[in-house]
């Protein structure tokens, strides 16, 4: 959280002040990058860069508090994701497969390393792959974006009830994944 400095930081960012822009970037970049990575984007870092450039272009028109800015940034991120998916489909490119990405994490050395990886990116990508696209979007926006049900509903264009249902099913699927791992371990 930027906290009490938020108004000053936002005003600085509006004028193009590099320090203000960097404060906002450092605060939100990990979550945006995580959201795009969790969605299986082929090049999440490039797309995250597009998201923040788009934020700079629109920040003059933004009004609201820190929480609203967070929601604003994830709205941009989600729209960029949808655009990127359309582009990928048009080009008949191979969309990033979470399984392939998980495999690309690297070979597993020993038990400790295996346990760490299970807790890391590979597990997350595998677990998310078991969800439907809508469930994945809701879970990621709620868990990584730290957004409310209402904010997620607005970003995805769904009702609150639909978001709650998707959230419950998505989280249940993730819990089952942990449960299976515990049983098999």
């Amino acid at each position, binding site marked *: 959280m930027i906290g009490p400095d938020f108004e000053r930081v936002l005003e600085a960012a509006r*004028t193009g002040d590099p320090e203000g822009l960097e404060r906002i*970037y*450092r605060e939100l*970049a*990990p979550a945006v990058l995580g959201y795009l990575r969790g969605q299986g984007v082929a090049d999440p870092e490039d797309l995250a*860069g597009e998201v923040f450039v788009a934020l700079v272009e629109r920040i003059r028109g933004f009004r609201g508090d820190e929480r609203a800015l967070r929601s604003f940034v994830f709205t941009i991120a989600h729209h960029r994701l949808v655009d990127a998916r359309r582009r990928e489909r048009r080009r008949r490119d191979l969309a990033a497969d979470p399984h392939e990405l998980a495999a690309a994490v690297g070979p597993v050395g020993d038990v400790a390393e295996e346990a760490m990886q299970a807790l890391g*990116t590979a597990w997350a990508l595998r677990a998310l792959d078991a969800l439907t696209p809508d469930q994945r979007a809701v879970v990621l926006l709620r868990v*990584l974006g730290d957004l409310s049900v209402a904010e997620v509903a607005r970003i995805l264009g769904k009702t609150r009830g639909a978001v709650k249902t998707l959230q419950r099913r998505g989280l249940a699927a993730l*819990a089952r994944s942990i*449960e299976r791992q515990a049983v098999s371990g």
Partner: protein
Amino acid sequence: MRRADDSWGEMHHPTSERLEQVLAGDAPEDEETAHLAAAVRRLRTGLLEAPSEAVAARHLAAMTAAARAATPSLVHRRSPMRVLTGRRAAVVALAAAMTLTGGLAWAGALPTPAQDAIAGVASHLGLDLPSSDDRAPAAEHGAEVSQVAQDPSLEGCEKGQAVAAVASEKSEEHRQDPAEKQDPCTQGDEGPGASTERSPGPPDGVPADPSIPEQAPAGPPEGVPAANAPAAP
């Protein structure tokens, strides 16, 4: 002990409030929420990662460049559409003014404020219309002529000559040879019947000065009203 095919969603039904607590990371760890809380933690651990410094530097450079590109366009630059609109408005205003004033603006004959306003608009379009500044000398000149004409200390031929002299000052500035004028008041007293409206040329029977170019008579012949005088050839 749970079976291997135990389905978490079928066994546990946490309330919405409980789910919110789990997502916020402050739910009490119990059997119902343990796996759920673990899943949320692992998602965050696995995916929430700050970009590398190289990536962050690249992103921040792009953001700064975007901010620089956005700032002048909003503050300083005037869009071509706005320039076009302003020019079009000027053309419309001038056309309307010209229509309403019937060309008086071109002659510089409008009242001073209107003339100045129209001259200002026209100057934006590269047109040169007279303004009040251009008219000021003419107005002063008229006042001078009027003052001499009303001067009670002058009479007869002298008064006529004085008025004519002041009135023709402007044209004499453009005349090539003003020194060759003759003073009709010094060419003999023709008595009380002599008209000051007569031509300033030589009297009948006196040969004209060859150095003065021959000109048509300036006034009508004697006894012919000026209004009916034939037009000069």
